[in-house]
């Protein structure tokens, strides 16, 4: 034996001896004790679900709330007769055999864990099931919590049971297969804030409920951290009014935003759907209803892009002014109902013609010919670059998932699509009035017009105002808001604003009806031809000013007709409502009691009388136990 093998032998002998002694102690000496522990299966960890944050409007009125729900759980190692169980569940909960087997199979290596097999069960159904629970020891009812969405909308989104792909993807973030995850909308976008962190508790009690103190552990408890609640910039009153103001039978979108902050006050997409439908099993009929041709699930504010038509004209005008091709007073080709270019005749919407116009008049009357003529002097690449700089190409970055970006072609795209010999000028003529390949989403348009109102300062549109609960974060603490300046000199901006003012206020304006006592109105109509149907899309984008800029509105209606006739009247109603209720809408509301923390009461300057202090002291412990539940 060499020296090395002697050393290795000694080391190995020591290590094996340690293992043998330890195993002897564990299995031979304490074997009976561990057998008992194993048989009674008393040492387990139970997850304590954190309470998901709720969602409120800007005056702390609820939009999404938690409500208790009755959930049915299954412990698969207690199953005695799978067939009988499956018949029972099929009868009461319409869970078919295959689905149940699949569920049991999937979690078959966690047979001690409870699987949630049905959530949010009706009270009556719960009662009828409970009568039979004696025969099915594997089933347990537990009180959980589910979401209640107070009105149909597209921004809140909804939560759902976590599915297998999501579980695989996020399992490291401590998701449970019995848990929920935000599927769309704010519920998904702010999942991390809303969710909180689940707690844990060690269960190690005997049949009489005594703690066994195994392994020297008396109790193990990790308190769940509840999710943060969201306070939105949405104003429920205004949202409600806008939803009513939008004609019932039409498809489209309506967005109202606060010009100075970029916060969205109202966010409508029609037709809409009730997110509560997703809180229960969806029947095939409801599913068909949700997928009907009008696509109620489609969020037309951000998930779809459309030809903007004439609401795009301020962009074309802006580039002409920026490049000094025209100034405020330059008149271009006289409009006689259209514009001859080569062998093609491009029509103006007004067949009688507008005559010769300058930029303000061209915007006011929405004269196409002015922009046709201007477009011939604009290089396509610069045009696209200008569209990008105006924030109409990239996503706005609104705090919702799956936003779509806009589209504007360049020469390369044309060559790829139509072949290398394509003439671009004819296409440019179409692009100049927001037709052709130009596509924008209603939210992009809203942000653009809000920026014009706000002295050219573009602010990322957003729905979140702040969080309340465990920590109080403002929107910019959660996510830095993107800001930039629209490519306007201050005199050019004034020119465009004057044009938009005349649209609503000059006798020749296309939206003369949009006037509101007590405020100055600005806007632009659009009637966009499109591939979806013969009738044009109706657009109105605009804003109002009192002593300072107030709100920007975008009204968009699919295949509804002319922007002046269809969209502008809706905008006027909303403006009227806003000015009529301006004090109520702008009033600030004190933070409700349930969101206040100890620091808030210290910070308050007003002297409190003893009664309220006592009241609070009494309240506090109660509030805390509520949280623990």
């Amino acid at each position, binding site marked *: *034996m*060499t*020296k*090395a*093998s002697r*050393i*290795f*032998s000694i080391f*190995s002998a020591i*290590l*094996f001896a*340690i*293992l*043998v002694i*330890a*195993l*002897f102690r*564990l*299995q*031979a000496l*304490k*074997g*009976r*004790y*561990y*057998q008992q*522990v*194993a*048989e009674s*299966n008393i*040492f*387990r*960890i139970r997850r304590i679900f954190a309470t998901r944050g709720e969602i409120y409007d800007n005056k702390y009125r609820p939009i999404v709330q938690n409500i208790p729900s009755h959930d049915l759980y299954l412990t*698969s*190692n207690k*199953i*005695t*007769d*799978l067939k009988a169980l499956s018949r029972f569940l099929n009868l009461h909960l319409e869970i078919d055999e295959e689905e149940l087997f699949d569920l*049991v*199979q999937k979690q*078959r*290596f*966690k*047979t*001690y*864990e409870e699987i949630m097999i049905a959530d949010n069960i009706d009270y009556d159904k719960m009662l009828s099931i409970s009568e039979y629970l004696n025969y099915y020891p594997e089933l347990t009812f537990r009180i959980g919590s589910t979401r209640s969405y107070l009105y149909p909308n597209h921004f809140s989104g909804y939560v759902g049971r976590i599915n297998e792909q999501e579980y695989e993807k996020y*399992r*490291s973030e401590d998701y449970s297969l019995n848990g929920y995850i935000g599927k769309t909308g704010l519920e998904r976008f702010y999942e991390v804030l809303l969710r909180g962190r689940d707690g*844990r508790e*060690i269960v190690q009690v005997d049949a009489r409920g005594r703690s066994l103190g*195994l*392994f*020297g*552990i008396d109790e*193990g408890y*990790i308190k769940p951290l509840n999710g943060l609640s969201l306070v939105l910039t949405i104003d429920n009153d205004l949202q409600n009014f806008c939803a009513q103001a939008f004609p019932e039978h039409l498809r489209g979108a309506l967005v109202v935003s606060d010009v100075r902050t970029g916060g969205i006050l109202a966010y409508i997409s029609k037709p809409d759907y009730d997110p509560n439908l997703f809180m229960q099993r969806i029947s095939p009929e409801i599913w068909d209803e949700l997928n009907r041709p009008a696509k109620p699930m489609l969020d037309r504010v951000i998930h779809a892009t459309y030809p903007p038509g004439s609401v795009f004209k301020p962009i074309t005008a802006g580039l002409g002014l920026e490049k000094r091709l025209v100034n405020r007073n330059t008149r271009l080709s006289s409009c006689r109902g259209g514009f001859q270019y080569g062998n093609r005749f491009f029509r103006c919407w007004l067949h009688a013609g507008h005559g010769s116009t300058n930029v303000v008049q061209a915007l006011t009357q929405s004269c196409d010919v002015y922009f046709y003529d201007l477009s011939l002097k604009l290089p396509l690449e610069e045009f696209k670059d200008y569209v990008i700089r105006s924030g109409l190409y990239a996503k706005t970055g609104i705090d919702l998932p799956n936003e779509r970006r806009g589209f504007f072609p360049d020469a390369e795209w044309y060559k790829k699509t139509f072949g290398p010999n394509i003439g671009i000028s004819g296409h440019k003529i179409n692009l100049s009035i927001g037709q052709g390949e130009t596509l924008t989403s209603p939210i992009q348009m809203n942000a653009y017009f809000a920026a014009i109102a706000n002295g050219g300062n573009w602010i990322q549109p957003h729905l979140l105002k702040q969080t309340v609960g465990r920590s109080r974060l403002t929107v910019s603490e959660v996510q830095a808001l993107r800001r930039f300046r629209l490519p306007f000199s201050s005199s050019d901006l004034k020119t465009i604003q004057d044009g938009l003012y005349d649209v609503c206020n000059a006798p020749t304006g296309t939206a003369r009806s949009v006037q509101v006592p007590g405020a100055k109105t600005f806007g632009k109509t659009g009637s966009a031809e499109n591939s979806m149907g013969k009738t044009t899309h109706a657009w109105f984008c605009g804003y109002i000013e009192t002593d300072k800029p107030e709100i920007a509105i975008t009204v968009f209606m699919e295949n509804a007709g002319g922007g002046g006739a269809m969209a502008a009247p809706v905008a006027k109603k909303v403006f009227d409502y806003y000015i009529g209720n301006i004090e109520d809408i702008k009033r600030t509301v004190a933070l409700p009691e349930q969101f206040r923390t100890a620091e808030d009461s210290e910070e308050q300057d007003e002297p409190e009388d003893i009664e309220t202090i006592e009241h609070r002291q009494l309240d506090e412990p109660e509030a805390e136990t509520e949280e623990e539940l």
Partner: protein
Amino acid sequence: MINRKKFDFALLALLVALVLLGCIAIYSASTTVISGVKSTQNHWWRQIIFALFAFGGVALILWTPMPIFDILILPAFVANIFALILVLFAPAVSGAHRWFSIGGVNFQPSESAKLFSILLVARSISREGLSDYRKLFYGFGIMALPMFLIVIEPDLGTSLIFLLSLMAMFIAADVPVFYILFILSPAISVIASVHWIGIVIWLSFLVFFLIRSRLSWVAITVAGIGNAFISLIMPMLWMGLKDYQQNRILTFFDPTRDPLGAGYQIIQAKIAVGSGSLIGKGWLGGTQKNMNFLPEHHTDFIFSVIGEEFGFIGSLLLLGLFAAFFGRMIHAVGELKVLERKVATAGIFAYLMSQSFINIGMNIGLVPATGIPLPFISYGGSNLLFSTLSVAVILKYMNERGFMK
């Protein structure tokens, strides 16, 4: 190909026995019975396919002519280093970048790195006329790169295995033991500083050993004072730590302090092994395997299934197999006369031995959970393949000994 007089049939037989036992345990670990319906996950036959590949690899290694085998070591090591760098950019699985996923099969480059690093180190420290310092320098130099890449994956346990194999290789390469003791002494001082009795015993042992090794008084004094200083300053550093930092360290060494986190698996594994009692619950009879281990019981916690179903008798049998297996390896270390092969064999022995001890120790609560699989038994392609190939290298050395020198 096989030289009947020299080939170590016993080692091969023990290897096959361990792999088969592994498949049987994996079958049980992935089987569950719900209301009389038995269902099994496909891990066990995947493991059998891995085993067939691995034994194909054994044949290939035995068949490859020695010169070609020797030439391939360096390129294999370099390629493996690249794989270790690339894996850092692979998507993380439970927080660590350890696996590539290629066509549904996961590959763990740190498994192959053990074998290739050992072979390369053996090559470079076995050249004639190297001073002890050079041996230490080359050995640490080569091991440092894969160890660093594996530490940042992060996978502390695996890089510890590298260090232990390196020490064994130094011993086999006749580097005086006091050098190794020198190198390890600061780490031992840190551990010994837990209790004053530990400090006293350790320091007296160190000084005694160094005196016996006939070192100069200067070296002994420096080592003694240096280590005494480390031992004495540790408690102060400890006091300087924040509570949660202290807790984190204590929990690493005693996971049961955190029963809701790291301790849960170990407590469950202990219950499983302990409840196996003397004779066990019988094959497929285990109940604790369904207690939702993470990582799952067919990989790192496979021993808990064996302990539960085969009891103390079964555990002893498995330990006996392992003991005989490692006995053959130690025997090989003594038999091999070419220094490079002897050193490589020592490295492979230490790698498999330390993994086995750490893994079983973890299953019975002796050692902190470090995510180290049990060689030949735990489910996992990379682990099975490269542990088996390592043994193949020893089989090859034994088979071809005596041809040179």
